[in-house]
């Protein structure tokens, strides 16, 4: 989330238009979908609530990533596509 927010949407789109690296955990979109029962998402109110909660969790992970990337000078400070 932090990574994308550094750029204007158009610029981000331009500089990532050919990217096909999809083999990572996209926690901003997926983390609660993958860990909670799908039944919970059938309730509209809950669906909206969990969507907002997911963003908060994504911020938590983004902050952890800063430390994770601290020693790695080859990636952006907010790089989030770690594989392991």
């Amino acid at each position, binding site marked *: 989330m932090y990574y994308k927010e550094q750029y204007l949407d158009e610029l981000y789109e331009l500089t990532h238009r*050919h990217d096909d*690296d999809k083999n990572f955990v996209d926690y901003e979109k997926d983390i609660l979908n993958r860990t909670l029962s799908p039944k919970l998402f059938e309730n509209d109110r809950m669906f909206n609530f969990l969507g907002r909660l997911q963003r908060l969790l994504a911020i938590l992970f983004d902050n*952890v990533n800063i430390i994770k990337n601290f020693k790695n000078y080859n990636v952006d400070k907010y790089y989030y596509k770690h594989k392991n």
Partner: protein
Amino acid sequence: MNLTEISFSRVKSEIELYLKQEYSKSNILFTPASPYGQILLVMENLYQLSMLFLKNSIKQFDLSEANALNGRVIRNAAIYVGHIPSRNISATGTIKFTVKTSSDLESDLPGGRITFNNRTALKNKTNGLEYSLNLGTDSLTYKVNPSSQFFISIIQGKWERITFTSNGEQNQTFQVNLRNNQKDIENFNYEVTVNGEYWTVKKHLYDLLPDEKACIVRTGFNGGIDVIFGNGGFGAIPTLASPIEINYLVSDGSSGSIFRRTPNDWTFTDLPIDGFGGTIEPTKIFDLSIFTDINFGADRENLNFTKNILPIVSNNFVIGLPQQYAYQIKRLGIFSHVNAYTDDNGVVYIVATPNIKLFKNTNSDYFNVDIAAFELDDYEKTKIDQYLRAGGNIQLTKRYVITSPRLSYYIINLFIITYSDASDDSVRSQIYDKISEYFLNFNRLDRVPKSDLVSQISSIKEIHSVEINFISRKNEDFHKQALLQQQNRASNVNNTFTTTETVNPDPDYNPLIYTGLDPILGDIIFEPNEIPIVRGGWYDRNNTYFSNNLDDGGLKSVNIIKKGTIDVKFRQTI
């Protein structure tokens, strides 16, 4: 309140307690089975995992921590000092295609020719791993007749591709890594294209010329590879929004080596093309066999090796000193013992012993592995040569010679005192195991201290005390030769029929000389071009035979002499 007491689970349990007190149904509404309970539980776990990760990440900054044996920590520290940890190296070899006697070429192969594309994928049936054809050109076409046979190089691994987009900035870097821990991006096989044009891969930023279409590829901090582009002055900058495509070989390392020659052990995942442009299943027409061993597969550098190798890292990629030759070869991981030394003319002699563990099957041990496993054949020497030329810049005017080590035979005599509850068979097999393990992981360069083996064998709990001595074949041969000469001279004297004449001893012979052994400490001593091996099959100076078979009743390569027992009640338990 102490700040360390604030934890997510404590806050959560306090909220639960509060809710329980406020609402009488709290036990039903807020259990993990309820929606809110489940959300809270998941949040708690994710939060805890983040905290754990954070703690672990912070510990990475301190190498003196016990946790510093963490692979990522060591590897990253090594990358910082300029070492590029090696990744998996794929096994390579050649397979032979021979037309099956049962095939009818006219109907089975339309057009009478077959075209293979480079990187055609095939699978080995026995180990289930993927291999790729390595043609060195885009495609190869063969005219086929009933007596045709041809040879194609293959490399273990599967080619994959990933695309990034340039942001037009200086020194752009892109990380390519895999989620599978067993596999790795191959050490040498990758290529980079920008806007569909191949860019040269170089080793260092300072190797790049101004605006040269070239980039650098290094082992990445998170595994895999990092591709680094230049800044204009050193290497061109890919233009904004241009696609950057990286092709790489995903390798399984040492498990890709095949030492058996099972015929027709392959299936083609990608199919070649016949003379009329249709696809064809080659296994229906051809018998496939392994022509040259598919070998030299190696796993990524192991952790201890990375730690040990750091002092002799060559940052400038030049191979000049003998240690640097040894460094380049050791990092392959397929040699258990590498020694490099130089003579007066500056020629570097490289003595390498293949890692016997890779050649022996799981049931055999050091004592029954084939003696040929200790030696390099010509094919292996050629491969080392190719590897050295690919791995660094060999200093001009430097000559090197790759040789197998000379085997220096030894017998081990072990004197032991066991505890009274020990079974002789169990003790014997444990001793054989320890010695086997020690020599399979052998990493000494000039001496085998007795203490190494004493400490190994002392760790067997049935053994109270142990003493070891070695018999060196070189030493025995030396003294045997002298004794023989003396006997010859004596028989010559006897032939003269002059009974008064006595035989003078050879003035050059010193009976106190020890070759291959330390006369004081009793350690094994060996030259840089030698490797000690514990094997029988020879006679000592008194014509006593040491058998090669550990199951023999007489003297053999390891002789265990029991000097007594100690009552088990005296065993130290602390």
